[in-house]
């Protein structure tokens, strides 16, 4: 396959609209509040999401050479209708359908959208597709697709792609397909088959009760694609997911020519050095694509003729469509009136009226209003007395305090400068203050076509490298442009030497704010303090050292081939979440009709993979984190006792109201928790200072919390903050039957455990405690009454251990339990029950562990044997 150019592609979408595509399926969607619900749609609607995402990508990139066409198969009545439509639309479109009108073999195939650069209209047309009452053969469609594509492209060397979207439930005539494959290979076509509920080992997915014809067809597609030079089959769910995966848009930096100068090339050119060089960007901030603004079109009354479909503006009927139009921005210039008494009255009046109107609008301004199509209330210019001025009549100028300095050109004569980089001097690289680097960086290369200059620059770079030097430079990008300062650092790549231009600040750019010393506190008598609530104690310093060690990322990444680990976090894999989330949202709203009903799915995991520290590190740091807040707050404990109490109340309140949310969503929720916790802590801290908390305050806060309705997943743990609360990390209920030092009670062990896990802290401790509780309960008399409960506990515990990398803890626990059950006094009955459950409660083996990223030394055989 030739290397792919961006654009220069024609993609044919062959869409199966056979009757089976009309089957209803349940699709899970996530709501804005992170809960999920199931909605029903046809297989066709579902699979079209993939097509629309792909087409939206073309619209998003906006390349003229990125085009597509849509062909449907398995259609019946549409054909004639479409045919008619084509005649009306574009008479020449008729010839496009030559193949299927002339050849009766292809009657179920319709060229639905001719090849062109897609836009929103294309998506709307695709939305109009419905399943038919008949069925069609994808191979027919494939032949028509290849034919249209070839006819459209002629001899052009564009990339040719064909995508078949089908459920594989219709019969395929599997003769002569080899000829088609040959043809496609000859033309360099890439074929993608996207199948509804096709089996996929990677996802993994296997369709239960697959029809016979479908499995035959699936196998056929596999055979077909593997016979091709580039063909692939995939299941629709995977295709939709991957269509939203972040993808870095690769930008090739252009080389911009300039000069590197050392010395005075005008007067002393015999000595001065001037090297022609090229600059190219090393980093450049990428930003999310901007949104376009739209509004619901205001409708005008036109009497009774709304029955006429052709007049879209004529409908007032709620059943009639809502039309959104794009909003354009324009700028007006006004001179506000002086605060003059006479004028003022009027101004105030009109403002008042306007203010009122606005208030009303705002009051009922919710999404419903946004949709109701009511014309927005009269829009007065907010100040009638203001004078509107034409832009042509304005004079440009600057403010010099309250003095005006007119300057019709918009700028004063500029400093005369000469394009190039002037080297000012060299200095030891280690003295450069990293924080002075100001912005986007550029490489400075020698001209790729000039070997002498390459050697020249290389000699400078290597000399600088040898002496560990940087150079101070002054850059002018074009003649008479404002100069910029920067430093040049030598860089030696494998095959080339170059300099790195790092912008550095001018004197004017540096702010020298003063900050109080963190170490030296002087009292009124001029003595230096060694103990103060602002100064960390030795104990705290030690705790912090432990924390820093535990949170080290240098060995927290992927494993290397030698068995040790890479550091965690790599800029080259850190996607800008805003860019990719905005893109996802844009794609989403282009493919759905109502974002209230179909909210945007959660971000692709790849976009937010660096949002939380790696599990490995979190686990390692658990002890240090638990210990640290106590130590830090010790000295302040008395002062803040009241705060702690207040927070206890809040926590109770939250606990009661918010059921612990599930573990899988903690990623996003933690942050919400953080915000509410900060609010609490602030309120709390402020109160402590006033020293006058009253019941009212608490009530108010309660109301506040009610109103806010933010569901923090970890309110209890994060509101702990720097306060000493070992007891409070437990649930405040005392009757939970908890043994001293345990966080899991004997009364409701599973409930306690789930709560702790949901909170996400103290996992190791929770696992340990639950294991102990289970063993205790099982060993007690009358344990049979709680057998089912204990089995449930164990099943949940095992699941948790797998996910939380507590595999060793589980294996130790279950071995210990087995031993205890089978030795006297024991509880052999309980062990039989466990055996009844079987493999699900046995040791965790290597394979299982690996799936979750953990490790175990137990083999599958051992695990099976252990339980039998």
């Amino acid at each position, binding site marked *: 396959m030739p290397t792919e150019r961006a654009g220069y592609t024609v993609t044919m979408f062959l869409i199966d609209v056979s009757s089976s595509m009309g089957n209803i399926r349940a699709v899970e969607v996530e709501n804005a509040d992170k809960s999920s619900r199931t909605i029903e749609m046809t297989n066709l609607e579902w699979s079209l999401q993939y097509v629309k995402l792909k087409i939206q990508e073309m619209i*998003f990139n906006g390349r003229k050479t990125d085009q597509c066409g849509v062909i449907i198969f398995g259609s019946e009545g549409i054909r004639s209708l479409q045919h008619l439509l084509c005649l009306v639309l574009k008479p020449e479109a008729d010839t496009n359908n030559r193949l299927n009108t002339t050849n009766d073999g292809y009657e179920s195939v319709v060229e639905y959208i001719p090849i062109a650069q897609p*836009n929103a*209209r294309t998506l709307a047309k695709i*939305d*109009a597709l419905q399943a038919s009452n008949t069925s069609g053969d994808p191979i027919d469609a494939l032949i028509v697709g290849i034919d249209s594509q070839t006819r459209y492209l002629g001899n052009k060397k564009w990339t040719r792609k064909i995508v078949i979207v089908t459920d594989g439930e219709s019969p395929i005539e599997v003769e002569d397909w080899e000829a088609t494959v040959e043809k496609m290979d000859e033309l360099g076509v890439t074929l993608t088959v996207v199948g509804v509920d096709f089996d996929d080992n990677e996802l993994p997915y296997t369709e239960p009760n697959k029809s016979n014809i479908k499995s035959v067809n699936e196998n056929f597609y596999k055979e077909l694609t593997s016979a091709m030079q580039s063909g692939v089959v995939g299941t629709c769910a995977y295709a939709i997911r991957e269509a939203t995966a972040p993808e870095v*848009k*690769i930008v090739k930096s252009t080389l911009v020519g300039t*000069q590197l100068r050392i*010395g005075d090339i005008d007067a002393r050119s015999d000595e*001065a*050095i001037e090297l022609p060089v090229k600059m190219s960007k090393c980093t*450049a901030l990428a930003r999310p694509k901007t949104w*376009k603004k739209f509004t619901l*079109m*205001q409708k005008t009354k036109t009497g009774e003729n709304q029955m006429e479909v052709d007049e*879209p503006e004529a409908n007032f009927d709620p*059943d*009639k469509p809502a039309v959104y139009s794009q909003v354009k*921005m324009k*700028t007006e210039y006004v001179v506000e009136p002086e605060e003059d008494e006479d004028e003022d009255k009027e101004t105030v009046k009109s403002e008042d009226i306007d203010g009122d109107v606005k208030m009303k609008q705002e009051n009922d301004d919710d999404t419903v209003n946004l*949709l109701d199509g009511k014309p927005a209330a009269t829009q007065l210019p907010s100040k009638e007395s203001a004078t509107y001025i034409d832009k042509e009549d*304005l004079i*440009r100028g600057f403010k*010099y*305090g*309250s003095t005006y*300095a*007119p300057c019709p050109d918009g*700028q004063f004569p500029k400093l005369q400068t*000469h*394009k190039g980089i002037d080297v*000012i001097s060299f200095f030891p690289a280690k003295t450069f203050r990293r*924080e002075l*680097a100001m912005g986007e960086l550029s490489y400075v290369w020698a001209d*790729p076509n000039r*070997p002498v200059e*390459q050697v020249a620059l*290389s000699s400078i770079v290597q000399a600088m490298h040898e002496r560990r030097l940087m150079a101070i430079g002054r850059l002018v990008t074009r003649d008479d442009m404002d100069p910029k*300062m920067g430093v040049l650092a030598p860089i030696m790549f494998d095959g*080339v*030497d170059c300099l790195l231009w790092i912008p550095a600040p001018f004197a004017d750019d540096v702010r*020298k704010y003063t900050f109080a010393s*963190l170490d030296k506190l002087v009292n009124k008598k001029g003595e230096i303090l060694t103990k103060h609530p602002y100064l*960390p104690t030795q104990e705290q310093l030690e705790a912090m*050292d432990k924390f820093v060690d535990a949170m080290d990322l240098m060995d927290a990444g992927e494993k290397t081939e030698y068995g040790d680990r890479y550091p965690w*976090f790599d*800029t080259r894999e*850190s*996607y800008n979440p805003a*860019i990719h989330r*905005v893109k*996802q949202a844009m794609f989403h709203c282009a493919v759905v*009709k109502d974002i209230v009903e179909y909210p945007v799915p959660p971000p692709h995991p790849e976009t937010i993979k*660096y*949002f*939380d520290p790696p599990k490995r590190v979190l686990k390692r740091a658990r002890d240090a984190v638990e210990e640290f807040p106590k130590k830090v*707050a010790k000295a302040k404990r008395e002062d803040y006792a009241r705060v702690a109490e207040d927070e206890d109340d809040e926590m109770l309140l939250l606990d009661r109201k918010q059921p612990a949310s599930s573990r899988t969503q903690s990623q996003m929720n933690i942050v919400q928790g953080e915000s509410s916790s900060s609010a609490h802590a602030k309120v709390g801290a402020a109160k402590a*200072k006033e020293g006058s908390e009253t019941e009212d305050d608490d009530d108010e806060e309660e109301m506040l919390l009610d109103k806010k309705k933010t569901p923090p997943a970890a309110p209890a743990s994060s509101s702990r*903050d*720097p306060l000493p609360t070992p007891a409070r990390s437990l649930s405040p209920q005392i009757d939970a039957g908890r043994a001293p030092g345990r966080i899991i009670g004997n009364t409701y062990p599973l409930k306690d455990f789930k709560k702790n896990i949901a909170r996400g802290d103290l996992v190791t401790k929770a696992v340990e405690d639950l294991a102990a509780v289970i063993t205790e309960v099982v060993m007690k008399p009358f344990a049979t009454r709680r057998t089912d409960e204990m089995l449930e506990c164990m099943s949940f515990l095992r699941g948790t251990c797998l996910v939380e990398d507590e595999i060793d803890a589980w294996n130790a626990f279950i071995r210990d339990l087995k031993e205890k059950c089978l030795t006297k006094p024991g509880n052999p009955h309980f062990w039989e029950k466990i055996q009844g459950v079987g493999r699900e409660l046995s040791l965790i083996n290597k394979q299982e562990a690996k799936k979750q990223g953990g490790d175990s030394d137990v083999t599958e055989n051992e695990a099976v044997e252990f339980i039998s």
Partner: protein
Amino acid sequence: MAPYDDWNALEEEEEELQDASMFDTKRDVILFCIDCSESMLEPYDDPKYEDVKTCHLFTALEAAMQIQKKKIIVGPNDSVGIMLFNTTRRSETNRSEGSEIKKNTFLFQPISPLSAPKIQELIQLLDAAREDLDELRKTFPPLITGRVPMGDVFTSCNWIIRDGAPKTASKRVFLITDEDDPHSNVGSKQLTISARTTLIDLTQAGVTVEPFFISAGEKGFNASKFYSSILLPTDLEDEEELQKDASILPESISISRIEDLLSQMRFHEVPKRAQFSVPFQLADGFTIGIKGYGLVTEQKKGTYKYFADVDNELKVATSRTIYAEEGNQKEVDKTKIVYGPDLGMGASKPEVGAADDDEDNDEEITGGFGARVVKAGQRPFFTAEDIRSFRTLGLEPGIKLLGFKDRAELQLEDNVKHSQFIYPDEMSYSGSKRTFSALLKSMIEKGKIGIALCLTRRNASPVFCALLPQEEKGEASDWDDPAGFHLIQLPFADDIRAAAIEESMRTSKEMKTAALAWIDKLTMKKGTYEPDSFPNPALAYHNEQLQASAFREEYDPDSFEDLTEPKVDAMHKRAGKLMKDWKIALTEDPSINVVVPATGQKRKATNQDVALGEAEIRSMCDNGTLAKLRVDQLKDFLKSKGESVSGKKADLVDRASDWFGSH
């Protein structure tokens, strides 16, 4: 915690770009409060100019003038006033309409917005005093007997600020004095108490006092004699600490050399404003408060404004943005705007006949103007709130620590933006300072940097930052390195560009040695990049012209000196010879004979005839026969000089001869 609230109240509509500029909208008011006693007027030899006398008061006033000049450009809406104390001059009747101020204090310039005439007034006074130092004594006769109670000074300040300063501004008094014990005589206790009370009044009015103590001469300045017992911590935000924690001495600036006054004031010229104040989460359930400051921010030229001639008077015109429906130009309420992606090429053009109408006409695109049509009650676009949540990913502002890495992991290449600086904020979370301090120390000791997920403002997007610890250095009163973390934004994968060139010729040992020779000569062995050495020439050039224009003076461009230009004389003196040697070595380098194979198909082999030398082309230029060259020859030449190669042949010829003209 005013800055925090401000930042919360920000409008969220505009996109990320507005950056720090919004913090500059808050006005700043400075009242210079200068001691005018005998000792301040005591003449001594000017250290800079021979045979010229100067005095502390002169220096103080000159500093005030310089600050005014600087401020008028940085913050044209700021206000400044000058009050003198220990002078017998009385305010002329109702010069300001406000209240009469205390005896022996004199309001020289009431607080008012900065303007050219105001600065010129001060310059005239200073010029007169430069001629004859006694001019100052005449203008502000000193109080001969005793001193004015400091309590009265603070009361006057309070009244002046109350009358002149806008309510919302940040208000500061720059107190300049050389007397460390103004009330050494009887009744001093009473006077001290009244000074303290009036100072508290002043602070409660939202005014910060920033003292500049001149300790020049043998006398010295001992702050503990009087001032340490009355001064309050300078940070407004620490106000509440006052009652609780009176054990710490506030910061004050003690200047041992009067010449340092201006540079010390420069540090305080811009009020210290935090750009953000957010929680810093070290671990789940373990959060402290921090504030972020922009220590390195590009200072740009002021943007021009539009003025309109209304009734023969120049007035500022403000711009408003109006949203209107495409097509019918109806104005749209901002709250009714929804957001969606670009609909793609051609989607906004009306389709002829709108013939898509079939049974499913509720799904068509009609309306003509970029419209999208859905069923009534459906909305295919997002609200402003949705948009914001996509940008922030639903995160709340804060910094979340992800872990630590070795210092060496932070590469020079990992840079896209200027850094920010964070410092603990005890007011939002108690225990912040000591926790922060412990973290800083531990990281410095272990040679670590932090990696953190940062969302510093409500309408920004989350970014990953490196936390680079900075150790505390220097004396408390001097500006040196404060303790804290530099927040360095790391590039995303999306921001990183691949190296544009992968292979090229490399140096020989000989060439490198030749380069080392002159590089060594041009190296400042103990130097570094020192921003203070490089004032922005373009900005200064602009500001000087602006000032001249406002003062209605002619500007002489020749008087401008660009300090960023390389010191070529010194360079040639030190290394000129060695640079020449290097150039000669280069001509002998084997690479001179290497021809890079032409990669583009366009170039034909025959074109490689003779690459014309610069000297040859120069002689053609001198003879006026440049036009004889082929276009590709001209282009090759221009390209080698980094000039543009666009345009017709005539343009190229012109450009080439221009180049010879200037070289």
